[in-house]
């Protein structure tokens, strides 16, 4: 059990800064996610915590220890990779027991101890009946669980998982997400998990840190990240289909004590909450974002709505995803399956006044949080 603190941690590869002064606080027994696209610096961050790469600036603490220069073996962290690297000639039992039989722990555990520990881990991973099998007799998800078991048996202070389920197929990933989240709760081990998959992070995390190009963009619980993205990068990276951004820029218009959003060629009603946030804004131009699920499509004329042309309709499960051509932009809209329309049809587009995301067009920061 331990918390992990990064204070302006920096990793450089030659001239390239992979991790740029990232500060994070992962609390004791928390399930902490580092989310970002490939090349964001996720794995480099994890490797610095594990001690598998040097720290080129800042500090890393595990519990109350500064670990910058501590050998990996002395940090009491366990790392599980996407490639499970099981020993093919050993049974599941022996694979899981392997770390307890390592030379540095020679004779530390009796055979009885080892059996009890393996059994406990295997029960938690719900693979007690697989202990006698060889790795070749296991499915991808089962192999992944053995690899996790081998990491868990050491009872590490901190558990590091580097995209552990990225290579599994969609269905298995769905099951493993639930399994891993449940397991982490039961073990209560502080865990740091990297992933490029926003759905994985939203689903499983207590706290998410979004990073891109080595820079930390936002840290917070999943729904805060989703509902109140700190900048336009987080907004477009989290959510599927991704947030729409309008090409025309918005401006803050104040008239007779009333604040509204000015937008070339289009009108958007905004809620009192957003008006209040804009009232004190010094920002000159705004980038306007709208989530596909916050747009309603309708037939016929209405007040205030926009008109758009159906460019394409796709079925996703029991929903329709429309791509609408509006004022030169392509907007994606999520609609119920029973709302259907043909390509080329003109539809009214209604927005929710409280579901408009506004970002400083220059630095990308949200003007609403």
């Amino acid at each position: 059990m331990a918390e992990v603190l990064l204070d302006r941690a920096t990793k450089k590869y030659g001239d390239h800064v992979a991790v740029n002064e990232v500060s994070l606080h992962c609390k004791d027994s928390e399930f902490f996610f580092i989310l970002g696209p490939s090349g964001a610096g996720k794995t480099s961050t994890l490797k610095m915590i594990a001690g598998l790469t040097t720290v080129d600036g800042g500090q890393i603490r595990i519990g109350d220890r500064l670990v910058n220069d501590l050998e990996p073996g002395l940090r009491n962290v366990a790392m599980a990779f996407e490639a499970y690297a099981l020993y093919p000639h050993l049974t599941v039992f022996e694979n899981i027991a392997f770390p307890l039989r390592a030379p540095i722990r020679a004779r530390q555990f009796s055979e009885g101890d080892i059996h009890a520990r393996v059994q406990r881990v295997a029960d938690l991973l719900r693979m007690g009946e697989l202990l006698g099998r060889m790795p070749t007799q296991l499915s991808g998800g089962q192999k992944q669980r053995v690899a996790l078991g081998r990491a868990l048996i050491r009872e590490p202070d901190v558990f590091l998982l580097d995209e552990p389920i990225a290579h599994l197929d969609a269905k298995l990933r769905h099951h493993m997400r639930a399994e891993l989240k449940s397991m982490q709760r039961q073990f209560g081990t502080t865990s740091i998990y990297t992933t490029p998959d926003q759905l994985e992070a939203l689903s499983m995390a207590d706290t998410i840190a979004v990073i891109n190009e080595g820079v930390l963009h936002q840290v917070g619980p999943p729904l805060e990240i989703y509902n109140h993205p700190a900048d336009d990068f987080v907004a477009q990276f989290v959510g599927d289909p991704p947030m729409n951004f309008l090409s025309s820029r918005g401006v803050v218009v104040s008239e007779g004590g009333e604040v509204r959003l000015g937008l070339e060629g289009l009108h958007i009603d905004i809620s009192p909450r957003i008006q209040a946030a804009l009232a004190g804004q010094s920002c000159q131009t705004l980038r306007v974002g709208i989530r596909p699920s916050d747009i309603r499509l309708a037939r016929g004329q209405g007040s205030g709505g926009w008109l758009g042309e159906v460019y394409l309709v796709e079925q996703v499960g029991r929903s329709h995803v429309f791509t609408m051509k509006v004022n030169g932009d392509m907007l994606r809209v999520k609609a119920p399956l029973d709302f259907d329309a043909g390509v080329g049809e003109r539809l009214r587009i209604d927005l929710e006044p409280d579901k408009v995301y506004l970002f400083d067009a220059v630095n990308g920061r949200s003007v609403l949080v």
Partner: protein
Amino acid sequence: MADVRLEKVWKTYGGVVEAVRELDLECRNKEFLCLLGPSGCGKSSTLRMIAGLENVTKGEVYIGSRRVTSVPPKDRDIAMVFENYALYPHLTVYDNIAMPLRVRNMSRSEMDQKVRHAAEVLHITDLLGRRVVRLGGGQKQRVGIGRAIVRKPSVFLMDEPISHLEAQLRAQMRVELKRLHIEVEATTIYVTHDQLEAMALADRIAVMNEGELQQVGTPSELFDRPVNQFVAGFIGTPPMNFLACELAVQGDQMFAQGPGFRISLPAATRARLLSSKASGKMQLGVRPLDVTVAKTNGAETPVAARTFVYEPQGESCQVTVQIDGQLVSIEADGDFVTEAGEAAWVGFKADRLHLFDSATGANLVL
């Protein structure tokens, strides 16, 4: 423009491995048909037989009214787009697209017009002068498709053309491909293992498994009326829940019951099960969207459960509950909040239930 028909087509390798077994399939004129299935299901072998890149072991292939079973690929009037685009890396985009036309000795102005039209449809006009080595993955794929379009083939064949692209680009290319089909109106047969892609693109989907055709239908038909447990489990994410159950009759009521649950079946389902004399062990199938969850017991939510995992996902959430030890996943609104260990009450939308024969996998309520 043409339809494509396969009649009792077999493909065996080395006389032993039956890759495709007695396949009857029709792709209608101007239709977008997806061949969908896991790896090894026979979908690529099928496409390659249509293209003429593989011999047909037994059966016949027709394109339009013409039997093409023994016609060489180049004479079938088809164009094939692969995942690896096989472009000429040191030629420009223009020259790559023009390549099939140059071989035909077409006039320069006619060729130019065709190349520019294809580029326009694919939104790559501003890339025409660029060399292929300098393009990104999505751009290369467009060039590969452009080269196929200029030939004006009767049939387009595509084998996983976008499966290697990263998620957001793939979603964007999906839109472009479907839009392209609407504009070019060419009969298209498209192979994929990704059910989401097939659902989004296809007019109709043919689901295959282990060399056999399982079902052909529109995306909605496959989603809501799967003929068997394989199709039911393969289509849709998160996947359908399956729970072992048996039928019980009490008065004029019929129930599907298993450990921890007993669900009254609607009259239409009951009638169908009675007429087919269904009995014995079954699998109850229900999509996560068709399970209701609440914090209290009620008419809609009569089954006692316990939350195993709660996963927020923004506008919706995923709740995995345990019903007498069995895991059931539920897709609920984003504002439903619970946590692991909490009591939950669930209900199954009776008109959305499926019952599959445990032995054959057949859907008994269709």
